């Protein structure tokens, strides 16, 4: 943490008393998977932004749902019991947590959905997933000069994944030379899932020109499978901009050539900002806040820092 950050925190502390909070604000963050650096980044960025805006006295509880609705609902209930003021919720399912969110609202708690939408949330901050899918697949189309066989390794049926795939397909559909051979393999958004499903696809298709994966762990698993199978005839584009992916991009033998980077810090910051505004009694001009992605390739990877 830099001095600047500390300074920001101090500034926040100066502002907060003006809000007249008797007790220090408490924020609950429930993400899907703390094993994923992306969510770690969201959690950490949210904590930092909260300290910056509200002050060091702000309490931030970070929990991971492991994509389990029950567990997440229990976590929300624990947030309610702990008397938090704001919940950043990376929901395991779009409408699986209605009751829990309703209970939170009853308790006067604002719920901001991050990364994925959640029914009943006061606002949603998420990457423009359709744009991310479009960016990645635009890259693939350009690399293939508009013709080739493409497979998509899909993920869990959450809005972000659905939108990415849709964005990708919309871009692919603009090219008559592109043949989409498979798009229903669900890699679960994980390295292992990517590995398994890619193995499956490699077995099923002798010739593949390009692969789109819904996130970087999947892409890395797919690349690992290709390496194991000694198949290097295709390129991979993904969505995330995860550190390991960025490390991989400059490598000479990489199959992963591009990733449409999300900006978890931006998401977290915006979520905290919106939450603070809600707490202050502001009315938000819109519920959905999209953070534009950026395509990262070996050419521009230097310009992007870690999340």
């Amino acid at each position: 943490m830099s001095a600047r950050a500390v300074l920001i925190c101090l500034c926040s502390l100066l502002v907060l008393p003006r809000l007249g909070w008797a007790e220090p604000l408490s924020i609950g963050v429930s993400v899907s998977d703390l094993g994923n650096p992306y969510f770690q980044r969201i959690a950490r960025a949210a904590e930092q932004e909260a300290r910056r805006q509200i002050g060091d006295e702000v309490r931030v509880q970070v929990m991971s749902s492991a994509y389990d609705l029950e567990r997440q609902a229990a976590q929300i209930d624990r947030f309610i019991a702990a008397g938090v003021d704001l919940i950043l919720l990376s929901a395991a399912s779009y409408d699986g947590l209605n009751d829990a969110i309703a209970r939170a609202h009853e308790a006067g708690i604002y719920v901001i959905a991050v990364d994925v939408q959640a029914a009943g949330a006061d606002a949603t901050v998420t990457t423009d997933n359709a744009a991310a899918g479009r960016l990645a697949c635009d890259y693939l189309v350009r690399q293939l000069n508009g013709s080739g066989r493409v497979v998509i390794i899909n993920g869990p049926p959450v809005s972000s994944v659905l939108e990415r795939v849709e964005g990708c397909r919309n871009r692919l559909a603009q090219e008559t030379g592109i043949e989409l051979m498979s798009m229903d393999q669900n890699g679960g958004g994980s390295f292992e899932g990517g590995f398994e499903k890619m193995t499956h696809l490699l077995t099923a298709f002798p010739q593949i020109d390009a692969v789109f994966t819904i996130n970087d762990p999947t892409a890395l698993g797919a690349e690992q499978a290709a390496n194991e199978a000694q198949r290097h005839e295709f390129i991979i584009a993904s969505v995330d901009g995860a550190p390991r992916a960025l490390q991989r991009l400059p490598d000479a033998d990489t199959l992963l050539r591009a990733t449409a980077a999300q900006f978890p810090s931006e998401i977290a910051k915006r979520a905290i900002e919106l939450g603070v505004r809600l707490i202050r009694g502001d009315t938000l001009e819109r519920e959905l806040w999209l953070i534009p992605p950026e395509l990262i390739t070996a050419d521009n990877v230097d310009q992007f820092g870690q999340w």
Partner: protein
Amino acid sequence: MNDASSSARQKAASRLWRGLRVRTRLLIAFSVLLGATLAIALVGWAGLSNTGTALSQFEEQALPDISRSLELAERTANLAAVAPYVANASSPFLLQGESQNLRDRIAKVLALAGAIPQLDAAAPRLQTLLLQLERTVNDLVELTRQRLFLREDLRQSEYQLGTLASRYGEDPQHAPVVQLAERLMLAAQVNNPAELDLLQQRYGSALALLKTGAYDQVAVDQLERIGSGEGNLFQLRMNQLELEQRSAFLLASTRAISEQLSTEVGRFVDHVESRIEQQSRRVGIAVASGKSGILIITLLGITVALGGIWVVRLLARDLGAVTGLMTRLAAGDTDQQTPAVERIDEIGDLARAFQVFRENAVEIARISQSLREQSRLLETVFNNINDGLSVFDGEGRLLAWNPRYAEILSLPADKLEPGATLEQVQELLAEEARDSWALDGVALDRDELNSLRRERVQRFERHFADGRIVEFRSSPLPGGGFVTLYSDLTERKAIEEQLRQSQKMEVLGQLTGGVAHDFNNLLAAIIGNLQLLETRLEPDSKAVNNARRALAAAERGGGLTQRLLAFARKQRLQPETIDVDRLIGEMLDLIEYSVGPAIEIDLTLNATPWLVNVDPGQLENALLNLAINSAAAMPEGGKLRFETCHVDNAGLESGDEAVLVRVQDTGAGISETHLARVFEPFFTTKEVGEGSGLGLSMVYGFVKQSQGDIRIHSQLGEGTRIDILLPRVTDLRPQEHDQDDQGALPSGRGEWVLLVEDDQPVRDMAEDMLDSLGYRVESVVSIEAAYTALTERTDFALVFTDINLGTAENGLHLARDVAEMLPGLPVLLTSGLPADQLSSRYGLPVGQFVLAKPYHREALARAVSDALANTENKES
């Protein structure tokens, strides 16, 4: 014994079979065939049904079993494969998917197992194993879930530690805090429980140290909460390790259960396989039995069909035989044996019916043949009888007639047609033939006659312009109408005339014969006495001349009687077998002398080598007579032709083969009216005194007496031709003429001769002749006197007797008695009758020599001498 009874049974069966009607037999054959066909159909149907059932059973049971068992095997194998995925699920989300997947699979296998009813029997542990697997998998899922949550909890702790470390990382005062946080983070990665224990102890001491130090209380509290609070990091990690161990166990369990499941499924598959095999074997057996059943029944059917063919062939053969018979019968062959009559079936019926039919046909044919013959006969008679015949019906209309009818009545045949009335027919008759005459010459009324003809028999005549007389004999018919026979009497009347003529000739012959006979006896006496007188008178005296003239006249009278006898066929002939050609050749100079130089004689003689048996002298005489007649018919000269040849169809009583002697002249000819009478004696065309009128009648008599025939053809101005037919004799050689001895007369030496003669002049003349010849004579007038003389005296050398002695006993009787009583005493017979009359009237033996009266002295001398000599020869 067995063989005998079985063969008896066979015979009985065969008899029973033959006894069946054809219909029954064919019905039996067809029934058996039908039965066999039905049986084949049934067996085939049943077999196909069985096969179909087996197949559908196979489809219903075995195939699903196979597919289920295969699916079961696959799914159970998959279960074990999926389990590690569950155990290794990296995220709860994946776990949810995989565990759901695994549960689905187990549920499916369970459902599958439940759907296989035989499964319990074949793989009794399968259900249990599946349930056990489900339990294990559920455990595993739950465990993994707990593990994941633990991991996530650990991550939360790590995140807090990370946050703590980063907050105090650059604060040297809080280095122990950071150190402890890092130590805790390390503990979250430790895999060894012992090491974890060690780390926990160190953490405890470190935390206690921290509490005493001046550190941020918040951080210490956080560290204490993370490291030793409820759900502390060590506990979480320990739990995690335990769960991992437990997870490995569960995985191993699922593998073991899965393997057992595979074994069970394999057993079930084996069971299914063996069941399918059994089923297939059963189906195979059923098919084989069905096949053999069909084969047996087919063979039976073929046998029956062959039997049927054989029966039909036999039937067809018998039918064919009967048909052939019928065909041959239709062709007219009635003499054939009917086959299969003894059969008692339809063929037999047919054969018997055919036999009856044939008998009827034969009978009908016979009747029709006889009718045809009768009809032909009647028709022939109708058409060919010499009489005309007509039939008119009750209304007087012409029904039928024969050709002769029109011919006899000179009716125009083309104008006669059936239905013409009697009046119309009579209109067609010639004018003069319309009048009817009764047989006695009275004219009859035509209309009355026409009506009478329908009621009773009518006979009448009609006369035609050409002289023909036609007799009508009309008889009424039972159904009305009448039938009439028309006889042309012209010819019959002519024949009657001829008959009368021949009767006249016969009467004439008998008359002249009788007269000539008596006259002959008279002449014999006269001639004999004149000859005796001549010897006693003075030579060259007037008396001698007178006697000689009387003798000549008497001899001419004798010649006359000879010719009369010849006509009467009563002359004594001495037939010989001769060659006619030779005879004519030898008498040629005599003929030439007789006819004179103006007549040219032509001979065409072709009779040789055929021979005839006639009296050659009489034949010469006849031919000479004919030549002289011809010469008389040719006063201006002409040609006289003698011709002989063979005739094969003479129509004589003695046969058809004859020699024809033809004498033909170119003279004046004889008119038709005279021609019928030329053979009558004393008929002559010459002036009175120029001819005797006996020439041709003598020839006629001679030829007839020689069993020949004579015919005369003559045309006025063209000449006369006379044909003499003489019967041919085959066996005999022609006899050479014995030249009469011209030497001195043999004379007796006083031998006694018994003379038997009833006619006194002849007796006296004979006495004198024998006396003059040197014999002594005792004369008697009767047989009785002859017997007396023969008994009184024994010195007779000869008996000389007339045959006809005017009594019942004749000369032949005498001769026979003498031959019996006095053998060696010769008997010389004499008679004025010819030999044939003697043999027919008196039974004269053939070859018996008879001295013909009247006899000359020379003939008597030779006959007596010969008789005596024969006796001497016999005696010597």
